[in-house]
């Protein structure tokens, strides 16, 4: 009970520090921008730890962060193996293939109004197919190894990427297009010099959405059949073995990998679309 009370205290304290930082004069420095979410995260961890200990929550329901950290540190080789199987092999290859194919398709689709009108609704329909249904089918088709995970990722990222890229390619304003016309520019000149640069914010939007989809897709697909390695495999097996600390260690890996992946894409976005109003401050 006292521990639970301490949890409340930690929460108030963390929030107060953040409030002070965010309103303070240094609020816009990169250091504070990084510190505030970190403090928030640490506060949550502290509260979690204290609540779990204070209320005696069983390990098999919710392990304390300290236990998870210990498991994480103690299982680095396994975690790394799972990471490379699921993320490096499954998610990344699927991401590259899916986004690449969607990009090329978008350029094709964009050339024909008819295709665009016809394909996009169908695409939205296909994108609504729930992954828990498609994953078993793709595992059946592409086998148990990472290839089927990549296929699931391809299916998941293809349409969001397609829709965004197609929308982006139509983003150039009428005036910008007209300008190209007055120069008598060819289709490819128009594409490379106008429509692709103008589409970049949208393309990156698609790429960003796809990062989390790719990760989740690769992990979830492993629930439906896998070799005896991989984050999804480990999670589902560990739940069965009541090794909840391992489950959370894998979740931590997923969250870190996802955030880093997202961060890299966001950074690339910042450098490529530096000109877009949303990137200026």
């Amino acid at each position, binding site marked *: 009970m006292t521990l639970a009370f301490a949890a409340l205290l930690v929460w108030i304290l963390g929030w107060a520090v953040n409030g002070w930082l965010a309103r303070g004069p240094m609020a816009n420095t990169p250091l504070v921008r990084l510190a505030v979410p970190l403090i928030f995260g640490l506060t949550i961890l502290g509260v979690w730890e204290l609540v779990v200990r204070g209320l005696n929550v*069983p*390990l*098999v*329901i919710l392990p304390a962060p300290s236990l998870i950290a210990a498991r994480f540190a103690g299982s680095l080789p396994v975690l790394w193996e799972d990471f490379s199987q699921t993320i490096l092999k499954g998610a990344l290859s699927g991401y590259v293939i899916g986004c690449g194919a969607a990009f090329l398709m978008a350029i094709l689709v964009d050339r024909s109004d008819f295709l665009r009108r016809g394909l996009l609704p169908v695409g939205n329909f296909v994108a609504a197919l729930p992954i828990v249904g498609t994953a*078993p089918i793709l*595992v*059946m088709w592409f*086998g*148990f190894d990472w290839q089927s995970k990549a296929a699931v990722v391809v299916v998941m990222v293809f349409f969001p990427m397609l829709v965004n890229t197609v929308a982006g390619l139509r983003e150039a304003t009428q005036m910008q297009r007209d300008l190209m016309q007055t120069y008598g520019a060819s289709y490819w000149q128009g594409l490379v010099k106008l429509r692709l640069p103008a589409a970049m914010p949208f393309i990156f939007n698609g790429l960003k959405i796809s990062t989390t989809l790719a990760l989740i897709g690769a992990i979830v697909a*492993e*629930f*439906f*059949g*896998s*070799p*005896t390695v991989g984050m999804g*495999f480990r999670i*589902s*097996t560990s*739940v*069965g*073995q*009541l*090794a909840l600390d391992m489950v959370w260690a894998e979740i931590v890996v997923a969250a870190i990998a996802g955030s880093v992946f997202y961060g890299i894409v966001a950074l690339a976005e910042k450098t490529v679309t530096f000109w877009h109003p949303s990137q200026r401050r």
Partner: protein
Amino acid sequence: ADSVKLQLQWVTQAQFAGYYVAKDKGYYTDENLDVEILPGGPDIAPPQVLAGGGADAMLNWMPSALAAREKGLPVVNIAQPFKTSGLMLTCWKDTGITGPQDFKGKTIGVWFFGNEYPFLSWMSKEGIKTDGGPDGVTVLKQGFNVDPLLQRQADCISTMTYNEYGQVLDAGVKEDELITFKYEDMGVATLEDGIYVLEDNLKDPAFADKMVRFVRASMKGWKYAEEHPDEAAGIVLDNDATGAQTEAHQVRMMGEIAKLTAGSNGALDEADYQRTVDTLLGGGSDPVISKQPEGAWTHQITDEALK
């Protein structure tokens, strides 16, 4: 009436016919019990539900229950309606497999999620590595169906006598195309589908009394199901909310299940228990449990129930 929640370890099917029969026939009501049967699913871990207080009793395979016990979750077997194991490996004959030693270099589908322990014990007893090397077996985490075998993605898969094996045959495969290894025959059988509760709860006399009545009624249900397999299958079908089960399938399953429950009156046979523990401990380098479990079972309930 006292309420009891029972967590199954899989979806509603004839594997759990005894409980559904007992409920349907009013055996539980007769014992002044209000029993709620919670179906399981592909990623629901019954011990976790038990630990969370979501259920009073669970069905589980003994290896998984013992492993949970070692993990610090004190579950206790209070009854064992299943005498015999229904677990087996089903392989294509044309892979040239004739015995366990031929598994080397082959691909084998295994259920995980706490159901991998019997297989791992068996392999370590045979001295076969399971890490995918050339002189070991390549293990796949098998999904929920027999496709890996039919699609030839695996040379062998895990099947239950009462369920997946029938599905393989249903898919048109002839029995002589297959070779099967029953764990029971290989001497590595482990106890399946026992009833488990949390140790602490048992100290409460009211709870223990509730369990006595529960086990008594359940066993009555089981025995009825054994004798009236068609009716039992029908009751199971009535309770299946997915509407996906077929009558033929459930009738056959009930027939096979009856063979597994046949030798049990509900009380755990100590010899069976010891054989299970030995199998699990015997697993050479990578045993499932590391030491002889203490207090993992009790006759306290069955003694009372079967009086």
